[in-house]
């Protein structure tokens, strides 16, 4: 086994990138207050799980994401063949995600777990967006309630969130 290093500090890295570009330092949200807590009411094998991903995933036929504070959502039917999935994102290396979208949008993985009875079912609608939205206020006031409202409508028991 080789040398172990601590996790990459992406807050430090983003700060360095922004200052090297002459921008104001980006301030990540700091929530010192504890988050709300809802316990799963059912065993996993009975849960309807929703996939929510921010790797800029869209399906062929959909409008792609733009790269300036895109607050929009894509609804993706989780019966989608992985070959119809695409990515559009301003910040990360998409090489592997374009070879196999399951590394940022684990739809085949979750379908297999549903088929094997490990999870109850994969919710029909997955929600994707791009992230990298500069204004935390707009995420809090616009995007977050919209995603939450839709998940409630879909009557899901658990939301699996996959950022990049």
């Amino acid at each position, binding site marked *: 086994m080789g*040398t172990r290093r*601590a*996790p990459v*500090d992406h807050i*430090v*890295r983003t700060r360095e*990138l922004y200052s*090297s*570009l002459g921008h104001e330092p980006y301030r990540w949200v700091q*929530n010192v207050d*504890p*988050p*709300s*807590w809802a*316990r799963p009411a059912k065993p996993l094998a009975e849960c309807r799980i929703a996939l929510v991903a921010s790797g800029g995933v*869209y*399906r*062929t*036929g959909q409008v*792609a*994401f*733009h*790269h300036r504070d895109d*607050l*929009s*959502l*894509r609804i*993706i039917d989780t019966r989608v063949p992985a070959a119809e999935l*695409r990515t*559009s994102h*301003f*910040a*990360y*290396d998409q*090489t*592997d*995600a*374009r*070879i*196999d979208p*399951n*590394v*940022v*949008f*684990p739809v085949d*993985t979750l379908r*297999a*777990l549903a088929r094997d009875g490990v999870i109850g079912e994969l919710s029909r609608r997955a929600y994707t967006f791009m992230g990298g939205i500069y204004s935390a206020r707009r*995420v809090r006031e616009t*995007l*977050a309630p919209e*995603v*939450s*409202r839709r998940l409630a409508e879909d009557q899901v028991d*658990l*939301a*699996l*969130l*996959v*950022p990049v």
Partner: protein
Amino acid sequence: MGLIARRIEADGIPTLSMTSAFSITRSVNPPRAVFLDYPLGHTTGKALDASLQRDIMMASLAALHELDTPGAVKMLPFRWSDDDDWKREVMESGDARTGRSAEPVYQCEADRRLAQDASDCPTCVFL
């Protein structure tokens, strides 16, 4: 994504966040997270390795019943490679981000034509 996790959970739906950015997750403080120490762009595993992707997902889902404190993060045991040299390379690499235009950026031109052929996109939600 952490802000969205907090909102969903506040509305009563349990969430599980997967992350490869430990410091950001600590700062934004979602209700329940698992940390996979991989380069960004591989939040749920390595490309074309369905068996590893499944193992990672199983270990992640197990956190639902293992984590019992709001804001807790489970450290997953998977390693990207035997050494961690990729982390040094990440810190030393420059800015690879694309320009920030408000035009859709398609993975390929064929996608642009497909999207244009459809007169509207009922599964696109513009907020």
